[in-house]
């Protein structure tokens, strides 16, 4: 059975990862490249967009980082793919691996649930996945363009993981829980990470214009929603074909 689970996830992840790479080419990637122009320009040439005062940053106790800026004492940036085709190929590879990872989790949950599934039901599972790893975490940590100001990385990653786990548990209780109290427990779980609150920097004023940053939030969420709907559809269709449930 483990072989069939992996087969479903590999095929669904490969298809969705390649598809989202094409969509990103028109939605998120142009904004990332545009933002990097501001990120790499010296502050003087930015016409008021770079408002972070290096001295002021010292006052925050070193907890404020401009994206791509290295902490004092860190090594210079290492290998990176060349802009253009090489970068696009590495992004597509990372997309496919991430998609296979998400597909494995989705397939495991669908299999564990043990109810019949098809493409349409798969879309519902996919939308749940979107809520767990994109929509709910975006309330605390909105999608960031390169060059935005953010709190320390490990703290944000920890909160992201907490939020994803609590949202998965909350949705599970809400929609699949057999007892009458479970939807209420689910709602409390959904709210929990946001009551705790995501780590935020103590200042604002990244190098990227707010219009561009705002556009990126929408582009990222819409692209990810389409990705998850397709991943769910592919997983559901393949799970039925492989008689997983």
């Amino acid at each position, binding site marked *: *059975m483990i072989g069939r689970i992996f087969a479903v996830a590999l095929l669904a992840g490969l298809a969705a990862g390649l598809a989202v790479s094409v969509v990103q080419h028109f939605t998120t990637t142009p904004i*990332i490249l545009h933002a990097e122009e501001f990120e790499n320009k010296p502050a003087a040439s930015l016409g008021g967009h770079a408002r972070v005062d290096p001295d002021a940053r010292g006052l925050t106790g070193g907890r404020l980082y401009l994206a791509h800026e290295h902490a004092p004492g860190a090594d210079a940036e290492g290998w*990176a793919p060349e802009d253009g085709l090489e970068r696009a190929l590495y992004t597509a590879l990372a997309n496919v691996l991430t998609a*296979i*990872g998400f597909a494995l*989790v989705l397939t495991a949950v669908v299999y564990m649930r043990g109810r019949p599934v098809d493409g349409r039901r798969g879309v519902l599972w996919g939308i749940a996945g979107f809520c767990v790893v994109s929509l709910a975490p975006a309330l605390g940590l909105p999608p960031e*363009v390169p060059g935005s100001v953010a709190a320390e990385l490990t703290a944000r990653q920890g909160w*992201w993981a907490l939020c994803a786990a609590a949202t998965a548990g909350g949705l599970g209780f809400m929609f699949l829980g057999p007892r009458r109290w479970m939807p209420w427990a689910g709602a409390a779980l959904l709210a929990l990470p946001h009551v705790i609150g995501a780590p935020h920097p103590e200042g604002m004023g990244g190098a990227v214009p707010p219009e561009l940053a705002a556009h990126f939030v929408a582009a990222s969420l819409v692209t990810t929603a389409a990705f998850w709907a397709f991943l769910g559809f592919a997983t559901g269709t393949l799970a039925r074909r492989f008689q997983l449930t």
Partner: protein
Amino acid sequence: MTVQTRQTVRTTAAERAVPAFLALLFGVFLVLGTGFAHSDAIHNAAHDTRHAFSFPCH
């Protein structure tokens, strides 16, 4: 006329738990590898994916 039979083998939740857990574990491992690893090379290779999927980056 063809009659399609769909053979379903009923499994218990306990039987499903082990393969489901293994797949879940491997999937989480993959996502952590591409989206969360602190290695510079992995970060730079997966940079645009991390931003597009809105994983915490940098």
